């Protein structure tokens, strides 16, 4: 274990430079966030991830945001274990009918002010599952969505760009 610790002290940090915020996300966000959000939250955001029927691909890439290369926490953003602690819900999947109520209740359990970011193509419009009897489709048809981050799945850089755009627009 000492070897790893020593290496950690001597080696340059692996964490990479932050990407520029995504232009399309900026445009989508322009009108959804007010000055008050910035005042209330500073740059700190607590994120609750909700899988509403995804194939788990989006979760894998959201997970990657926590590794040393992306290090999401340096932006003041962190994943929390309960919607009660969250400012933002990060929702994935084509919202299966079996998950719809759970998503609605998670949203209801999140204190105001709150925002929803829909992650992935399924969350945008149901993706390849949009015609299914078992799926509702877009997350936006169940809870109000402030930002979409597209991709199947979006890679961590795309996710970071979206999240950074989100925080910057809180000003």
């Amino acid at each position, binding site marked *: 274990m000492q070897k790893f610790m020593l290496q950690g002290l001597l080696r340059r940090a692996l964490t990479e430079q932050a990407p520029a915020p995504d232009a399309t996300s900026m445009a989508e966000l322009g009108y959804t966030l007010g000055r008050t959000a910035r005042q209330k939250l500073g740059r700190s955001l607590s994120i609750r991830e909700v899988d509403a029927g995804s194939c788990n691909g989006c979760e*894998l890439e959201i997970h990657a945001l926590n590794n040393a290369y992306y290090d999401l926490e340096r932006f003041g953003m962190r994943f929390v274990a309960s919607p009660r602690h969250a400012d933002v819900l990060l929702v994935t999947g084509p919202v*299966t009918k079996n998950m719809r109520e759970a998503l609605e209740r998670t949203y209801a359990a999140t204190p105001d002010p709150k925002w929803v970011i829909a992650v992935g193509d399924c969350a945008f419009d149901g993706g*390849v599952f949009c015609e299914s009897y078992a799926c509702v489709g877009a997350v936006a048809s169940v809870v109000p969505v402030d930002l979409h981050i597209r991709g199947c799945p979006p890679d961590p850089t795309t996710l970071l760009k979206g999240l950074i755009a989100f925080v910057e627009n809180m000003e």
Partner: protein
Amino acid sequence: MNFASKQTARRSSQPTCLPWPREIVDRTGWLAFAESLAKGERELLSLWGEGSSVHMAVLEQREPRLRIVSLECPDGAFPSVARLHIPASRLERAICDLYGLKSVGAPDHRPWLDHGRWGIRQPCGARKEIDSTCDPYEFLPVEGEPFHQIPVGPVHAGIIEPGHFRFSANGETVIRLEERLGFVHKGIDRLTSGASIERAAQIAARVSGDSTVAYSLAFAQAVEAAFDVNVPPRAAYLRALMAELERLANHFGDVGAICNDAAFALMHAQCGLVRERILREAATCFGHRLMMDRIAPGGVVVDLEREKVSGLYTLIDWIELMTPRLIALFGDTTSLQDRTVGTGVVSEALAKQYACGGYVGRASGRAFDARKAIGYAPYPQLAFEIGASKECDVDARVWVRFDEIRASLQIVRQILDAAPEGPIIAAWTLPEDWTREGAALVEGFRGEIFVWLRIRADGVIQRCHMRDPSWFQWPLLEAAIKDNIVADFPLCNKSFNCSYSGHDL
């Protein structure tokens, strides 16, 4: 099978399924199979419905290793396999939910995937509209000493998939865990029925995102079997390369996550780096971090450019350097061993009964690996050793993963050394003569993935059945946590890392 024998098979009343035959049996034959499963002479691979018939795939001790039998049930009922062989229970409940076929004599008639929220019943059978918005669900009773219940989920605390766990605990000790799944049911059986091969391939790649390569490979192999398509050698090697990169990435992710659930974040951070570098290399070589949609029936859609091979060599050199260090870090940290050794034991008998695959089976003495047992290309040409253990606990499931990491590194190196040049996809056309059936068994990182499909002459999929290895691992998690403390559940659960999406379909 050559052309003449195909003709013969078509003329007889038996259907043509390749590479393993499918036989139509009567009730007696069906029950004989169920009894042989119960006696342990055969192993259950899958059980699925279609219209008014049920199909069962079994593993044999001898060649052919795989057999598929079908029973027509015009009265909408079939003799329960679960009555004799309990591992079939959830599969039968799913058949009843989706196809409306009743399993007569089944020990458990509660719905499984159907939560009463679809607005219809039997979506793949005779559809019935319903008004209800949600069905009540009765959990199994727990009797005896004073105990309390802890409901967990479907929304979990971590960044993981949704499912419900009902713990009955006496103080800290779990008396019973009962799983309730189906929350991420996306209706994949219905979506693939009537779909074109291209669309079904897209859906197959999204059955379980962490196994997207393995699912695409299994689907492609089944289509190729049905149409007798020969995959070019280079494509077979590139497929195996992607499959092994996926396996490596997932195993490193898992090892880190298991240690993280035992509060050992250092291992999580280090394994996360390895995983990230694998995914980045995958993106460089194949254009997608998870290598989604890179395998198509006939071959692969992206070639590995010559100048990118050196990057892969650099990657595996580095992983080979890191792996012994990570193994030492895991093995020498006694506080970690204290959590993993003796925790979440799955007996060898249960692993055998459930024909449990992947690292869960291997850690409990069942060393089945489709890469060896079925030996699809190019694995017979490659030398590698499969891990095995009889320790049966969380610790064993980590060590088996380390064994698999070593094997995958061996395989990747051999592929890079020996991948032949040539075309990457076979030119093939639909034969436009008659309906074909194909099946495939492919080793994903989690265990063997089974796919069976029937394609009409015009290239439309009539029925595509995809069975995730998790079907036979989820029930064992319930057994593993018994008599452990509640706080060790995340550790046990992560050591299984079953798929919710692959199971719920």
